[in-house]
């Protein structure tokens, strides 16, 4: 036993040395469609920070796709350590399969949403139809482009934003909201299946007078497709779009990556992470970062899904499931 002790000590020494020299860690972040540039920058910054603090070399792999499809893939075994999706309902689906703790939204600040966006209008140069607010969308002769909320997560935000606007008007109630939203969808010439398709319809095919879109995507699209062709109109009141993040507990524990995964999602809340989010057109949560980017994000009144609809599970069941409110909007109902 006495002879063993120095050997053990030496072994521990070697072990410690190897830890100090750093490990190679791979993290998989399963995200939704247009977050590539955002996470390219986040990953570079995070990897450098972790290397400096812990000495490990982290590689962050990315997967991008429609939010609902991405959640489905994680349920089917896509080994995500972290998910950064478009709506809480998709992470709830992971929680239902035991991959993420049920209280995932309480484990991180701000509803587990480190950055937000909002629903705005993209209109053609000069705003020829004079669109200023939601009420202008149902004026005669105005064509609105928005995807089908049955198939598109992004379109559900659009729907709820319109509903919330009508509800928050003086003497607003559910019946008036329903009437307004029904009228709004009568102005939609094409119901695309996804947000990307809707943008395409509006931008490439030149259909419609106004595209209802996420603010970050509208800014990104305008940046990529021509600042001189489109204008962004922020309505008086709109929904606070909260794309949430979570560590996928089951996978992170299995891969032994929990510490890095948690640091990664925390990094999104750091001043550096918030700055990167703002640069990529997401509204930051930190007040001083927000102040610096104030010119990019006009002030508007916002409401959340939780405040007005009691969370995504309830909103989904009430509005978008089969036989829900959206299905009742059709002609003849």
């Amino acid at each position, binding site marked *: 036993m006495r002879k063993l002790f120095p050997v053990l000590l030496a072994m521990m020494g070697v072990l410690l040395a190897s830890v100090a020299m750093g490990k190679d860690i791979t993290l998989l972040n399963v995200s939704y469609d247009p977050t590539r*540039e955002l996470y390219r920058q986040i990953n570079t910054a995070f990897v450098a920070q972790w290397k400096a603090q812990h000495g490990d070399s982290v590689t962050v792999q*990315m*997967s*991008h*796709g429609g939010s609902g499809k991405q959640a489905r*893939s994680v349920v*089917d*075994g896509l080994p995500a350590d972290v998910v950064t999706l478009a709506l809480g309902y998709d992470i709830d689906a992971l929680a239902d399969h035991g991959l993420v703790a049920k209280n995932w939204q309480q484990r991180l600040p701000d509803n587990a949403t480190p950055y937000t966006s909002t629903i705005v209008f993209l209109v053609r140069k000069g705003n020829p139809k004079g669109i200023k607010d939601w009420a202008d969308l149902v004026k005669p002769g105005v064509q609105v482009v928005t995807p089908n909320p049955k198939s598109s997560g992004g379109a559900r935000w659009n729907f709820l934003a319109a509903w919330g606007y009508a509800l928050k008007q003086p003497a607003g109630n559910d019946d008036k909201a329903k009437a307004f939203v029904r009228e709004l969808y009568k102005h939609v010439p094409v119901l695309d299946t996804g947000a990307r398709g809707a943008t395409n319809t509006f931008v490439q095919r030149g259909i419609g007078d106004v595209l209802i879109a996420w603010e970050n995507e509208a800014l990104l699209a305008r940046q*990529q497709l021509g600042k001189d062709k489109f204008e962004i109109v922020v309505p008086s009141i709109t929904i606070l779009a909260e794309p949430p993040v979570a560590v996928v507990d089951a996978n992170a524990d299995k891969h032994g990556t929990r510490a890095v995964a948690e640091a990664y999602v925390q990094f999104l809340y750091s001043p550096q992470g918030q700055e990167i989010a703002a640069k990529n057109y997401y509204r930051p949560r930190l007040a001083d970062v927000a102040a610096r980017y104030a010119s990019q994000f006009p002030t508007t009144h916002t409401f959340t899904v939780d405040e007005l609809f009691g969370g995504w599970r309830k909103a989904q069941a009430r509005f978008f499931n089969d036989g829900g409110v959206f299905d009742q909007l059709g002609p003849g109902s």
Partner: protein
Amino acid sequence: MNPAVGRRKPGLTRRLVRLALILLALVFLLLFLVLPLAAVFVEAFRQGVEPYLESIRQPEALSAIRLTLLVAAIAVPLNVVFGVAAAWAMTRFEFRGKALLGALIDLPFSVSPVISGLVYVLLFGAQGWFGPWLEAHGVKIIFAVPGLVLATVFITLPFVARELIPLMQSQGSEEEQAARVLGASGWQMFFRVTLPNIRWALLYGVLLCNARAMGEFGAVSVVSGHIRGLTTTMPLEVEMRYNEYDYVGAFAVASLLALLALLTLGIKTLLEWRYGDELAAHAPGGH
């Protein structure tokens, strides 16, 4: 044109009809083939040569090209082996269930690619039949390269067999039997008699199979998981970039895919031009 004139000058009517048909075919080709193809290249080079090169030099693009070629390099040889074996069985032997085999070979043509992909997810996914066992043994199929290969093999399964079967049926087995009677071994017969007889149909099948393997989208999209640099093939990379508003990047990768397809088409045309008579005599109508 009134019928009386037509009757007096039958040659003119025929020439007009011929001209109209040729024009119609050309206009269709121009509208539905040439124009979209040209659009791909125009969009890819919209911001100039430098952004184009930049976007295909990115590590994700390079890895997508590598992965696409790797998947095709595994799927095509597998299909050659299967195709020849299946065609041999179908045309040289009589056995129970032959009709069933013939129908099964065609199955991938009739099933939507997305469904084929989903079937593999249902089998090997975490919630699938074999998922828990595979996970316990650390085997990754779905959302990894094996899944992409499986899906591609499934989708391209019929190409080689469907090219060979009609040809081998029409050729019959007399030459092979003669070879055996003259003392050739089984392998000698295959390499000296059968293979030379079917080589052009086989090559034709390989080219079609290869084109489809590289271009397949639906099935691989379902089993890929879209992990950048790991499980995204070129068609998936095109879609992802497009969804990220990276038009130049999307069309740049699309242009490479189009070039690969054009290369395949070029090889096929070259073969048809050089060996036109031989192919015309044997080749069944392609798919």
